[in-house]
């Protein structure tokens, strides 16, 4: 996964170039794969460590939420929490944000592993290997600054 700040900034910048509607939902979608798939096992591990650690299956079972099948299910589940007339838009934006997240992550190189894009139908990992798994750290400040500038400009525009 790329770092969370880069994911956040890229989602804002993409929305700025495509109409600036439903930005919070799209940005949420771009953060959720890491928040849903990485955060729970880390938190559970901290809780379970004094008790002997988390069982392996409990660590692994969150991973599909970082893959297309899990993203589809999670987007649909979350969209159902919104009013009926907003669900299609919310679903599309959540899924779009998650898709952007996965696309950025797919560009990384992880020493022989990757993402099982067609899980559960096909489990061969895929990765484009265009940059290292930590390289976004170097551009994150620039992306964050650009996203903040775009956000500020949009706020001023909507206020005026």
């Amino acid at each position, binding site marked *: 996964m790329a770092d969370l700040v880069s994911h956040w900034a890229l989602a804002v910048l993409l929305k700025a170039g495509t109409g600036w509607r439903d930005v919070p939902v799209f940005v949420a979608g771009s953060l959720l794969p*890491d928040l849903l798939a990485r955060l729970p096992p880390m938190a559970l591990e901290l809780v379970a460590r004094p008790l002997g650690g988390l069982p392996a299956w409990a660590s*692994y079972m969150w991973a599909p939420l970082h893959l297309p099948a899990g993203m589809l299910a999670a987007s649909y589940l979350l969209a159902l929490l919104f009013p009926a007339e907003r669900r299609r838009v919310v679903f599309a934006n959540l899924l779009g944000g998650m898709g952007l997240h996965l696309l950025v992550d797919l560009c990384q190189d992880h020493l022989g592993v990757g993402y099982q894009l067609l899980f559960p139908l096909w489990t061969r990992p895929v990765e484009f290997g265009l940059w290292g798994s930590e390289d976004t750290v170097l551009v*994150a400040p620039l992306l964050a600054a650009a996203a903040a500038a775009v956000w500020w400009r949009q706020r001023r525009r909507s206020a005026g």
Partner: protein
Amino acid sequence: MFSDRHRPLKLLAAAAAVVALGAWYAHLALRVPGGWWEATADPVGHDGAPQLLPLYTVEAVSPGRLVMGKVARGIPVDTTAISTDLSGVAPGTTVSVAGHFRAADGAIVADVVEIHRLRPWKKALGVLGLLGALGVAPLSFRWRAGRLEQRG
């Protein structure tokens, strides 16, 4: 599909799909052919089997040897066959290892070790992003009449 008709059932079905995907993934992950779990269950049958430890945390360091963990813990890695400079690698460092399983001592003999020196920065950005999300979420969404709404 997006209407209020049978909404509780749809919520339940979506949640069940998430759980089923997770259970199936965990089932497969614990049975990767030739992977660490299988190798340790049948060491002799997996002598020489290729092994990958992506983004594992170093638990202990001694000359020519690392002990690493992530989901599985206490994995011994023999680093005597590589020329990578491991200075600065300490408990807590994130590294990736490609190598092969050695049945004699249950260790992974490393062919490639990649040290992720920027990982602490990436983790810090992750915490920053998480705190930002927690701060912005209540400003962007609200719960009203049993539904989630986008503000503004």
